């Protein structure tokens, strides 16, 4: 773990609730109940609270589920995702660990071999590289290498991808890294429903699951359906979701980029340029190629969007899968990847802004792709 980020974290994430409690006790209470109501009377929830609900519900449902990581207990998590869990479940099930990723990750893996269902929180996925051997060589492979005799029902979770103003060592996407490993399942939620449903599915899954959250999404509120509020709600791992239907082009994205893709689609529709279909991948592995292929066969055009690096990335994999599928013959234009710049993330705000895709870039690429034609 890097001390620098911790500082950044504690400074950049003030306790919204504490501030609110002073200025608006009524709203603060509503937030404490994790639900608030939007202008249309629907229920809204932040991604942070959705993750918190998922943890709380699964820990209540199954005694074997426990949470461990740096600062997850008394401090309520560096990003407050585990707020209130120590008080509710006690120190046997919410464990503050020493600053040793390979240590607590290895401990979590060993306890999963022994029948518990650990949720191993990394303060960010950047720090999990210290423990990647435990994740890739032990968690992912032991079921296979033991001849199916040893299960590893573990959830690894934490914020992934670029955050704001924390530079190269704290801003990178690990979707391609973990997405390449057989034995792991990898999910990447975008909104509150994704966050809750995928985390719950991950905890219930008998296989090791990597949950790639996004720090910049934690504080964002999204509507929650009646179904999503239920303690039985799960989002199936391995299935993408069509967030917006369209006819002219398919935009596939995961995590925070789904929001940009939707904005771009709306912008283009408002301008009368096209009707774009937006697919939220939700799962990186298994990858729901079927949904993408079906969409491409309908729209004949494809753009992928991600915050990760271009080379060997999620977009690259989608391109390859489309090339190898029957959807290839339906393409009217080459597939284009919109990705993070192929550089370590710079710190200076102006440079950082250039390093990642946003709504405008996506809209521009979509327009360009609409104007291209294979063989023309």
């Amino acid at each position, binding site marked *: 773990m890097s001390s620098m980020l911790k500082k950044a974290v504690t400074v950049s994430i003030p306790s919204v609730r504490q501030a609110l409690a002073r200025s608006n006790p009524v709203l603060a209470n509503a937030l404490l109940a994790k639900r608030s109501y939007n202008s249309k009377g629907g229920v809204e929830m932040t991604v942070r609270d959705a993750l918190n609900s998922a943890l709380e519900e699964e820990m209540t449902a199954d005694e074997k589920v426990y949470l461990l990581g740096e600062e997850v207990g*008394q401090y309520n998590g560096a990003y407050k995702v585990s707020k209130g869990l*120590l008080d509710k479940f006690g*120190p*046997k099930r919410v*464990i*503050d*660990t*020493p600053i*040793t*990723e*390979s*240590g*607590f*990750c*290895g*401990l*979590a*893996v*060993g*306890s*999963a*071999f*022994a*029948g*518990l269902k*650990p949720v191993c929180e990394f303060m960010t996925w950047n720090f999990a590289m*210290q423990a990647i*051997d*435990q994740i890739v*060589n*032990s968690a992912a492979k*032991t*079921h*296979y*290498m*033991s*001849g*199916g*005799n*040893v*299960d590893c029902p573990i959830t690894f979770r934490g914020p992934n991808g670029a955050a704001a103003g924390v530079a190269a060592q704290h801003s990178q996407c690990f979707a391609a890294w973990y997405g390449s490993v*057989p*034995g792991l*399942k990898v999910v990447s939620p975008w909104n509150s429903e994704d966050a809750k449903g995928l985390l719950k599915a991950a905890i219930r899954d*008998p*296989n090791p699951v990597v949950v790639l959250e996004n720090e910049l999404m934690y504080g964002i509120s999204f509507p929650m359906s009646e179904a999503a509020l239920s303690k039985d709600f799960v989002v199936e791992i*391995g299935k993408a979701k069509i967030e917006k239907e369209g006819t002219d082009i398919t935009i596939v994205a995961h995590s925070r980029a789904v929001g940009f893709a939707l904005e771009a689609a709306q912008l283009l529709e408002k301008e009368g340029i096209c009707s774009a279909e937006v697919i939220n991948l939700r799962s990186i592995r*298994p*990858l729901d190629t*079927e949904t993408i292929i079906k969409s491409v066969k309908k729209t004949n055009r494809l753009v992928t969007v991600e915050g990760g690096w271009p080379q060997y990335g999620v977009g690259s994999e989608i391109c390859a899968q489309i090339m190898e599928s029957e959807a290839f013959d339906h393409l009217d234009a080459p597939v284009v990847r919109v990705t993070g710049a192929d550089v370590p993330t710079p710190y200076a705000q102006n440079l950082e802004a250039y390093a990642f895709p946003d709504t405008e870039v996506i809209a521009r690429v979509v327009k360009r792709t609409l104007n291209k034609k294979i063989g023309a």
Partner: protein
Amino acid sequence: MYARVSARALARSIPSKALKATPAPLAHSAKAFSTSALSMDAHKKKERVKVHFPGALDSHFSQVLEIREKMEPIDTFRVMDTDGKVLDKSLEPEVTEEFATKIYKDMLTLNVMDLILYEAQRQGRISFYMTNAGEEAYIGSAAALDPEDEIFGQYREAGTLLYRGFTLDQFMNQCYSNDMDLGKGRQMPVHYGSKALHFQTISSPLATQLPQASGAAYAIKRSGKKNCVMCYFGEGAASEGDFHAALNIAATTSCPVIFFCRNNGFAISTPANEQYKGDGIASRGVGYGMHTIRVDGNDVWAVYKATQEARKIAVEKHKPVLIEAMTYRVGHHSTSDDSSAYRSKKEVEDWKRHDNPMVRMRKWLESKGWWDEARENAHKSTQRTAVLKSFAAAEKRKKPAVSEMFNDVYDKLTPNLIEQKKELEELIKKYPAHYDTSNYAKDN
């Protein structure tokens, strides 16, 4: 409130008292520099004042600048001398003939099996092997465990499995990765695993088993079972970051785990004196605030006794223990190694002659009248026959079914696995001349 909070509160309550008792520092330090060592010691004793810093609550203030390089080396516990004589009568093992001879028989069987499989590798019949020669006394540690204590091995602990009842057939099937291999042909030879015998599947990367052992111990503690975890590793693996991570986290989370270091003097070719500079591995245990034992690893009864005591601490107090068993690897590291490149044959022969765990145990048994030449020869010969029989049977068995390539990646086959499997099956069917599967087991 939780323990951590109260510890902090305690730390905070110390300063007011402590500070009051602190003598004027300037006057004292001037005195310290001018006094002789003897009176300085007396002076230090008189005015020992505990610090109030939360990070080291047991330390005292001192006006003597101390730069410490070494601590007192930790002694090595032994029961028998190199001739198998018990050095202190009070340490005479109170064991039955059956129990003692079982340990020795397993040590002998391990030798016989190692010899045959080592040769099999040399003949190209299996790809890899690792022998246990020189370290057989670690079986004494297995004998001190409960059969349901979970074992996390490194790779040179086949003897613990043998002690628990892993059959010769099971060993041979694994080394031949045939259709009866419990690991379904997915691991290199000697990477054994047995759920039934509470022996975790061996993981090749060094030291990953250490933090995992802490985790399994945490699960045992939570379950309330009166068991512990036994985790083996070498002194070379103790240089890995995972060693630190595991011991620190086992100590801070109070896990019932025994870390058993086989310090055999070599990490492949790197001798211990190039591996670390401190007092072996045991000195580190104390640094982690952990109960620590150093033991003569060539002395079965010392290893047995040390493990028994360690187990009591782990199971009754829920605390981790570090055991460092000092030994000497007589064999090569593995079949990929020729140790004559970095140590003399004479050195190895000297060890075999002067401090041999087999000889020590045998002599002890003979002094009891529980063993003799005839029994030695009879056991060796029956085991040799049994190993060869298992070996031949394992070699003849079919290889794992093609489907085992895809099973167990996940609990169920995912779409891409189904697709891959189908593709392979079609290829095999289409080109039977290129894909001869007659020697493979049938798919279930």
